[in-house]
């Protein structure tokens, strides 16, 4: 990955404006987050959103950003897969002694993306500043759950991209799913019935930010915690298996680009 990172940094530095704008985007995105934070501060920290106080929501914001950071690191390369498959450009990755996943991730692993998790850490620290009584063990456990949930999101989105070996135009579906995923920034524990089921098991958004924030703020019972962690682990196992299987079958179905 370091080889890719170095190469991408050098490519980024080929044009000064490009380099400046990529980091400018990072700065703009970060400012946007902190503006949101300031906006939160205008409310009384003890006001509520559903059953959540704005103090507690700060954890959801932090985990939402963590999800976003890991998505930017891992899944962005996969967003190009539908185009690479149609044009036969996946050949450029397949002629290298790397797994296609590593090739796709590495290809678009731009150094500015490494800074996104740092911003997530800053937001998490701010959340801890306004929530000083958090149990450190629960905090650590919550962070681990959030990382596992982010992996699930990445594998879920990557798997949908892999369908482009069979279906043309998958990028539109992936974009739509991405839009649905923005719902992770809201507390989803209020959802009941079919909505809850869909956002937990079909499009697993519930685990991304709401669940780890629930753990840290001790809003759930031990049984609910076990149930949630078990479901998350099960979903991860299923999606990893699906992901590997889709890669193998997808590559079997790959047609490359004629004589190009």
């Amino acid at each position: 990955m370091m080889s890719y990172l170095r190469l991408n940094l050098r490519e980024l530095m080929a044009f000064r404006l490009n380099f400046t704008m990529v980091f400018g985007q990072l700065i703009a995105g970060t400012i946007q987050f902190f503006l949101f934070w300031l906006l939160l501060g205008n409310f009384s920290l003890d006001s509520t959103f559903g059953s959540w106080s704005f103090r507690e929501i700060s954890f959801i914001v932090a985990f939402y950003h963590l999800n976003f950071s890991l998505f930017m690191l891992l899944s962005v390369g996969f967003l190009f897969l539908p185009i690479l498959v149609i044009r036969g450009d996946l050949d450029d990755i397949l002629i290298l002694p790397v797994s296609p996943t590593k090739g796709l991730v590495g290809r678009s692993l731009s150094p500015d993306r490494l800074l996104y998790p740092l911003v997530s850490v800053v937001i998490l620290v701010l959340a801890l500043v306004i929530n000083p009584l958090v149990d450190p063990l629960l905090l650590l456990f919550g962070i681990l759950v959030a990382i596992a949930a982010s992996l699930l999101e990445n594998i879920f989105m990557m798997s949908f991209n892999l369908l482009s070996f069979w279906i043309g135009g998958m990028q539109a579906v992936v974009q739509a799913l991405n839009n649905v995923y923005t719902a992770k920034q809201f507390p989803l524990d209020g959802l009941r019935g079919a909505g809850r089921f869909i956002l937990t098991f079909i499009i697993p958004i519930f685990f991304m930010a709401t669940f780890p924030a629930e753990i840290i703020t001790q809003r759930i019972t031990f049984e609910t915690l076990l149930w949630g962690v078990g479901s998350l682990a099960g979903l991860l196992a299923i999606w990893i298996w699906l992901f590997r299987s889709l890669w193998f079958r997808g590559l079997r179905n790959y047609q490359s680009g004629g004589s190009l």
Partner: protein
Amino acid sequence: MLINFSKVSKSYKIRLQNGLKGFLNPVFHRVPALNDLSFTVENPGITGLIGENGAGKSTAIKLLTGILSPDSGEISVLGMDPFRQRKQLMNLVGIVFGQRSILRPTIPVRYSYEWLRGIYRVPKEEHQKNLEYLCELFGITELIARPPRELSLGQRRKCDIVAALLHSPKFLFLDEPSIGLDFRAKHTLRELLVRYVRENNVAAIISSHDLNELENMCDNFLIVSHGSLQFSGTREDIEHEMDLNNLLYVETEGPSDVPIEESLSGLRQFATSVVQEGDTLKIAFNDSVDRIMKLLYDGFKVRDIKVQRKSLEDALVVGDTR
């Protein structure tokens, strides 16, 4: 055995109609690209994979490199299944597609080489040694400090080939490596590739539809047509198989002291055919040119001789029309 390509078939799924009809009712069809294609490569050296456009050359190379998987048949390259063991195999082979480039267009070529060093995990000293040798051989020492977008097509292709050789592969796959190059650049590239292969005792498969290009550089030939193997062997085998004769056009000033029938029957012993048209003799032959020449000078007053050496292309065109 370096390569075993046994009874391999591959077809592509294509959409029959486009436009509104295709949108409303998409109909797909499978088009065969290779039909039970079989061949082997036993020894190092250069094997030419020849065929017309759409014959299945690129498909064969992509199957050999694990980019595509076969519908049926077995493929083994250096003892490995290319599709299932692609990652391991890629460490041992070098691949160049004439229409593609692995080099990043906007940064100096040497940065892309450095990236490849990391990907192939080549030790620094070994990489430096290989780079110096290859840059000198291909004459690109000055070029690697420039980005590919500032290079000519010929220069870029050389840099692409060096990129495929940096990790010292045991087997090279080159798919139309000289496509788009002018005759001088093609000639240079050909010579450099042959020199590299001979100096390093590696094996290579080069595909091209340009027979004249491969004629003098390959030890063996695989001729593919419509996805099937038409011929496999050395140039001599092709000449023998396709009854490929060279032609001598001899202008004479009439017979010498020897009777003409005696001279002609003497020639017919060594030539494939002898046709007399006025003062001109048309002699087709495979070998024994020295004896034919002696008989000519003994039996005729020779005014002029023209030799027409038939190329592989001639042989294959003859083969096609049979």
